[in-house]
């Protein structure tokens, strides 16, 4: 059974994270994705660490694609790209050196959904400014949720701006495909250009914060004081940190919890009333000042034991995994979040699975590893020859 996007053809002219992630997702969902790389290859091939000459980021975000190489200093290669785009349903482009001939306005492709991903968005004074994950995290004030006031900025270590933009790009592409007129399947019309950016996506993802800042009844809650709270490292137990909150633990259950954690001393503490009532854990009103009290109690137990005690009393507790503990967690195995993808040299590489389950049009486990530079050159160009049957569209 083919995936939900079976039959669509996607041409990707993009590097790094946002564009490749977008096209990978479309490929995982069943589209035929052709990735065009410059002669020196996608920049992320050379990112660290090196894994048999290509980085793990490249090897993950470029599965489910075929790859060719085109050189924008050659008019013939630009023409080849034009023809590939004319036969495609979707273009995913970013602004790393795209020749003007391949801009949306210059293509005569009435059915094409042309998705351009930029750093700062298509309008405004920064429309053409070069952008990066870090630059957009800073400009959208996303870095204000990390680190300490007055100290050097801290970025989120994951490529959140890029993946947020990719997730938005996937939505926009699918919506535009849905709005297209496919009544003549071999000649669709009603394509359009869609634009997304890292900056805009980071801002959209912080919408709760903007609403909170509009006109709050009272200045409190983590959507306001997250700016000024100190870094949150979780609740440290004897061995590992955990997340915990009282949830609805009150009254006798709270007394019993304190007893079982051996925190009798806390009853004499001036903050004991706050300890009883601030139920929201790390997000609570007094979380930062109460944490040392909880940690003094938790220091006598391993994380597993603390979580068991808290949950038995009606609270919430979750392990604070690093990627090693995450990848060994039975729940992760149960939901199949990590897959092994055979690489072209026969080795297996562990990667994150596509995040959707479709019962009617199941997404198969990805099987196509990243292309070697130009691996599918002759195959793709052969399909492009004037005599070849054009690829079927949306059927």
């Amino acid at each position: 059974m083919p995936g939900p996007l079976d039959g669509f053809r996607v041409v990707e002219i993009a590097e790094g994270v946002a564009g490749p992630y977008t096209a990978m997702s479309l490929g995982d969902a069943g589209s035929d994705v052709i990735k065009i790389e410059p002669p020196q290859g996608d920049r992320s091939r050379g990112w660290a660490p090196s894994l048999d000459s290509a980085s793990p980021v490249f090897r993950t975000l470029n599965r489910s694609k075929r790859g060719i190489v085109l050189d924008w200093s050659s008019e013939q290669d630009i023409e080849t790209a034009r023809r590939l785009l004319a036969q495609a349903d979707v273009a995913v482009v970013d602004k790393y050196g795209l020749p003007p001939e391949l801009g949306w306005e210059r293509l005569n492709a009435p059915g094409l959904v042309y998705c351009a991903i930029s750093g700062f968005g298509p309008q405004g004074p920064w429309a053409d400014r070069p952008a990066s994950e870090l630059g957009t995290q800073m400009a959208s004030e996303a870095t204000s949720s990390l680190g300490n006031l007055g100290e050097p900025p801290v970025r989120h270590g994951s490529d959140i701006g890029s993946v947020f933009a990719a997730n938005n790009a996937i939505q926009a592409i699918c919506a535009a495909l849905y709005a297209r007129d496919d009544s003549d399947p071999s000649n669709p019309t009603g394509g359009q250009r869609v634009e997304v950016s890292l900056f805009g996506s980071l801002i959209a993802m912080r919408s709760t914060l903007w609403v909170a800042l509009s006109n709050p009844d009272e200045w409190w809650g983590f959507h306001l004081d997250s700016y000024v709270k100190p870094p949150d490292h979780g609740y440290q137990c004897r061995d590992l940190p955990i997340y915990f909150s009282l949830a609805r633990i009150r009254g006798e259950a709270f007394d019993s919890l304190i007893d079982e954690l051996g925190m009798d001393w806390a009853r004499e503490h001036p903050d004991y009333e706050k300890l009883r009532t601030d139920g929201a854990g790390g997000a609570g009103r007094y979380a930062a000042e109460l944490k040392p009290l909880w940690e003094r109690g938790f220091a006598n137990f391993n994380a597993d034991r603390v979580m068991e005690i808290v949950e038995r009393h009606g609270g919430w507790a979750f392990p604070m995994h690093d990627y090693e503990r995450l990848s060994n967690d039975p729940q992760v195995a149960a939901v199949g979040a990590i897959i092994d993808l055979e690489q072209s040299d026969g080795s297996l590489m562990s990667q994150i699975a596509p995040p959707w389950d479709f019962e009617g049009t199941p997404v198969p486990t990805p099987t196509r590893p990243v292309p070697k530079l130009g691996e599918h050159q002759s195959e793709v160009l052969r399909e492009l020859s004037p005599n070849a049957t054009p690829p079927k569209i949306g059927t």
Partner: protein
Amino acid sequence: MPGPLDGVRVFDLTLWMVGPWASTQLGALGADVIHIEQPSIDPRTLGAGVPPTINGTSIGYMTWNQNKRGLFLDLKSAADRQTAYELLQTCDVFLINMRPGAAERMGVGYEQVKAVNPDIIYTAITGWGEVGPMRDKPGADVQAQYFTGFWSVSGAEGGRPEVYRHMAQIDATTGNVAAQAVLMGLLARKRTGKGQRIHVGMLRAGMALQSGRIAEYLSTGDLHQPQGSAAFATAPDQAFQCQWGDWIGVSVTSEDEWQRFAAVMRESEAEVEGIDDLATDPRWSTNRDRVARRTELATMLQAGFFQRPRHYWMLRLSAAGVPCGYPISFETLQHHAQAIENHYLREVETSGWGNVWTGGAPWEFSRTSARWFGACLPGEHTGEILDELAARRATADEPTPVIGD
């Protein structure tokens, strides 16, 4: 021009954040999203009661229920359940984010909804998945951040990893992934003519968000330690402090950019040993060399950046095509041309809470515009929607089948 999902109708049985954010996206894309609330809802529990409030309602509710119409339905009442089935016949999409089994108990499990409308794209969103030992555990952003290691790769250089103090990033990511899945389901229906059931969970969506970092761990077995503003995969790609104390974020992510960056540093005439020779110094030949000696390189560059103001560096680096940026606060951002001209931030009217600021649609469509409007009150459009159903009933050829419980 109407939005790309014009004509699509969504039955939105979602609460808290993940589900409501998915339908907020679909509404922005032009779908008619009908957000269901129980008539007995305590307004203090809307939006999970996430603080702060505006006029007593959680800002969570009014963020996550934009671009919708509100309908009161009590799915425990036989009459309202019948209304729900009638409404479902007019819908293309069903969305729910409750723990496994809850939908069936309310009479809106997939089999029950499919009996009313076999073409429906039925999308269930869970926290931890529909299988496995954690399937019945509650899931919200903060737990997902901790559990998936989202906290483990950020923090001050040399310090302990720290949690991202905006507890909505994995919630909203899961909502976006669910909206994608709905759209893919609609596209598949165009081809196959069939509806289907879809599932999306926070655990896998949250892990997909971290695909790059997790792949690096899985490939090498090395856990990243926090390194402040510095990237793991590229160098130099971090913040530097400029003259007068301002910070600038500079990212060199390709060898081309490195050559251009090296030229800017040389032309700055900053007095730092070695800064004129970045392009030719064998220590910095490739990105991987620079990542391996990141601290050594950053120390030299920091000395250079400190000799010119930030504005100097922004001008020179931008002109050279080297990505850069700097921190902007909300007060500046909400009037910043880049945010306003792209409609990324906007002020919207609401029925109950005055004008509120919010992020806007993150897309620009050249033909079928996206839209963005303020949150509905719970049940705000009940009369209007029931009137539409009555009008439809008056002209229908066949009565709505009565579904047993």
